[in-house]
């Protein structure tokens, strides 16, 4: 009964984290297709720190997490700098960087350090100290097989952080301003270039965190398919969440459930897993539909109702 829920949560971890990264980019007006590459690079760094070093418990995990985030941040920062300095289009740059990352990981997995078994598919296992502990320990529910790990807590914390960043921090104010009206942002003294770089670094770091959920948690080592299609699904997740932190969180949970359920469905009833893709696509279509339908049939937008009932400033003057 509980296992399907925890499995959904396991699958949602990378979706939520990478989705948050995409969402931050959207808010700054950036279409970051590069979560895939950022996940891969984050995964390489996190895995390497996880198996090649011997550090005390807790510290080792924190170092590996941080390394993964930094790996993703650097890889996300590249298109940010290129756009800020030379006006390079972030869509094209991130797509190209995705290819580079894919070839980078298959190259790295053939290096002796990463490839003791000479399969070219899987790195050594990450040391136990650098692995996310399971969230539901044996002593709480004896005999459980839940795979849910602390990566999910990281996803929750990241959601809170992104909410704070966008809604409460000066940096987020700049991100939103630049995304909504770069000209007005510039007139107000903000640096569009600096904000672009910061946004891409944050987005990359979040994708890097998504990678840690896989290599330090679910998978336990670096594999060639570590990023699966998470980097691309994350775009859908962010769209579905309307680029809001909690919206993205719940969209990530939903897509995690669809992913987890899809595998189960296929093995139990032979329903092709592609149906999940169809369902996902329909969801996105319906979410995107209201404006679309309005445009097609030229319907007026429902008028905005101010949230508060505060009396109109009639009495003044």
């Amino acid at each position: 009964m509980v296992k399907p829920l925890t499995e959904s949560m396991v699958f949602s971890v990378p979706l939520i984290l990478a989705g948050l990264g995409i969402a931050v980019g959207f808010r700054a007006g950036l279409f970051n297709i590069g979560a895939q590459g950022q996940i891969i690079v984050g995964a390489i760094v996190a895995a390497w720190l996880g198996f090649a070093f011997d550090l005390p418990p807790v510290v080792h995990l924190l170092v590996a997490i941080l390394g993964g985030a930094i790996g993703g941040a650097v890889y996300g920062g590249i298109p940010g700098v290129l756009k800020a300095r030379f006006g390079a289009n972030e869509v094209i740059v991130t797509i190209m960087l995705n290819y580079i990352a894919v070839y980078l990981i298959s190259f790295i997995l053939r290096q002796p350090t990463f490839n003791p078994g000479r399969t070219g598919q899987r790195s050594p296992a990450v040391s136990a100290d650098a692995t996310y502990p399971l969230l539901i320990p044996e002593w709480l529910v004896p005999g459980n097989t839940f795979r849910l790990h602390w990566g999910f807590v990281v996803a929750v914390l990241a959601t809170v952080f992104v909410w704070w960043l966008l809604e409460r921090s000066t940096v987020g104010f700049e991100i939103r301003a630049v995304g909504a009206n770069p000209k007005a942002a510039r007139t107000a003294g903000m640096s569009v270039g600096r904000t672009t770089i910061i946004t891409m670094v944050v987005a990359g770091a979040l994708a890097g965190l998504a990678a840690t959920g896989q290599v330090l948690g679910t998978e336990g080592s670096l594999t060639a398919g570590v990023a699966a299609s998470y980097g691309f699904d994350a775009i859908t997740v962010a769209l579905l969440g309307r680029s809001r932190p909690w919206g993205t969180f719940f969209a990530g949970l939903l897509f995690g459930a669809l992913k987890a359920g899809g595998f189960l469905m296929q093995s139990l009833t032979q329903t092709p897993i592609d149906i999940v893709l169809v369902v996902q696509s329909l969801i996105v279509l319906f979410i995107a539909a209201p404006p679309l339908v309005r445009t097609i049939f030229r319907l007026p937008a429902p008028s905005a109702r101010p949230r508060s009932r505060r009396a109109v400033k009639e009495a003044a003057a």
Partner: protein
Amino acid sequence: MKLELRGITKVFGPLVANDHIDLVVEPGEIHALLGENGAGKSTLMNVLYGLYDPDGGEILLDGEQVRFKGPGDAVAAGIGMVHQHFMLVPVFTVAESVALGYEPAGPGGVLDLDRARQRVTEISERFGFHVDPDALIEDLPVGVQQRVEIIKALSRDAKVLILDEPTAVLTPQETDELIGIMGELKEAGTSIVFITHKLREVRAVADKITVIRRGKVVGEASPSSTETELASMMVGRSVSLTVDKEPATPGGPAFVVEDLTVVSPAGNVLVDDISFEVRAGEILCIAGVQGNGQTELAEAILGLEEVDSGRMVLDGTELGGTGVRDRLRAGIGFVPEDRSTDGVISSFTIAENLVLDIYDTPDFARGVTMSPTKVAENAVRRADEFDVRYTDVQDPISTLSGGNAQKVVLAREMSRPLRLLVASQPTRGLDVGSIEFVHNRVVRERDKGTPCIIVSTELDEVLGLADRIAVMYRGRIVGVVDGADADRDMLGLMMAGVPLEDARRQAAEHHSVLGEADRAETPGAPAAAAETPHTPDPASPEERP
């Protein structure tokens, strides 16, 4: 076509924007709607155009009740609208823009651009528009873009044309032309609903005037009423249409510009070797026809525009090499010319827009954490001070009326300690009451000893506000005149590039009607751009003898 609105009511949350409004527009009538900022004029027109669903009331065309589900229905019924902020696609040609939305399709669904082109030419010729169907929108001056909007409406056989503040962005010259066009349309039987805050225009063209205040019709006025009468009817109190100010008591030069040159990336010299100074406690108005380098000059002062040569010194400190943020922090208040693109972020709340360039100061943020409470408190204080008509400071600024959005920009830029104020078209879109308020604030800022630079294309504003006037023409300063001995005719000539002394002589020999009116100091000058054939035509200097 006879248009009748009966009991139109439109509610936004707790706000009644239109409260049982009745309005009758006869065929071939120019009906002016007057009212304060936020009175509900644009809302009423949006209801009429099918953009808003009314909460009550009915619309009748030639006595028959109609219901519009959207602008498509309104257009089909013969209603055309030119919005307060009109939106054309910059990379389209005129013909494409006109075709957009109704797409005359030829065989096989291919867009029939030839027909659209033909239509543009036809309408252009009939009303004397002089619009080239193949010109790109982005290359056209704002006045011509507006004509494209009108052509667009007419090409769909509009019998009722709504013009929402069409003259706010026009030069006096373009305004004259628009007034001429309105006359032509009226002759052809088109009814026009005309919204403006400029009372002389109303008196010049309107057949009938309806005044709206706080969502209700407060009465009708005849076009022969004086400006003062109209103004007090609008605002509900008496308004001073002239600026009351003591003579300036300027100190030393506080802001000095030396040999400033700005060249566009394409190599055009936009600001051409300009030098001037503004003294502490003095208002310097930069007058000129739109597009003669004033925008670039203002932007160069803030650091938005790259300077090719020359220097600017504020209170002894060189500005060169510092960024926009440094200059804002150094105490420059900057009101951009175009509030919707540069001044506000429409999806941000009113409160956020009120701190757009001070959000990270200690008043609103500790470290990188902002305080929403302080931002909100500040917003309520500023909005009340500047009489912004809002419902909740946490509403997006896009829910404010045009004039109220402008007041937000002014409130933000003028309510912190300033060492230099640079304001472009500060009163664009404001009602007469708010203009009075803003002018008084500028004078108060001056009296505190702040050097003020006001860029304006409105001669009335320049003449009323300035202690000194610098006239710009083609990127240069033609001359600097003392505010006290400037007159309308002389400035008009200088705006056309005539040097100071020649302008003074010519103006003395030959007065225009408006100039005469100023001289005689009749209250509520009999002003009508259309009736002033002698007004110097600043836009076409070649045509002058």
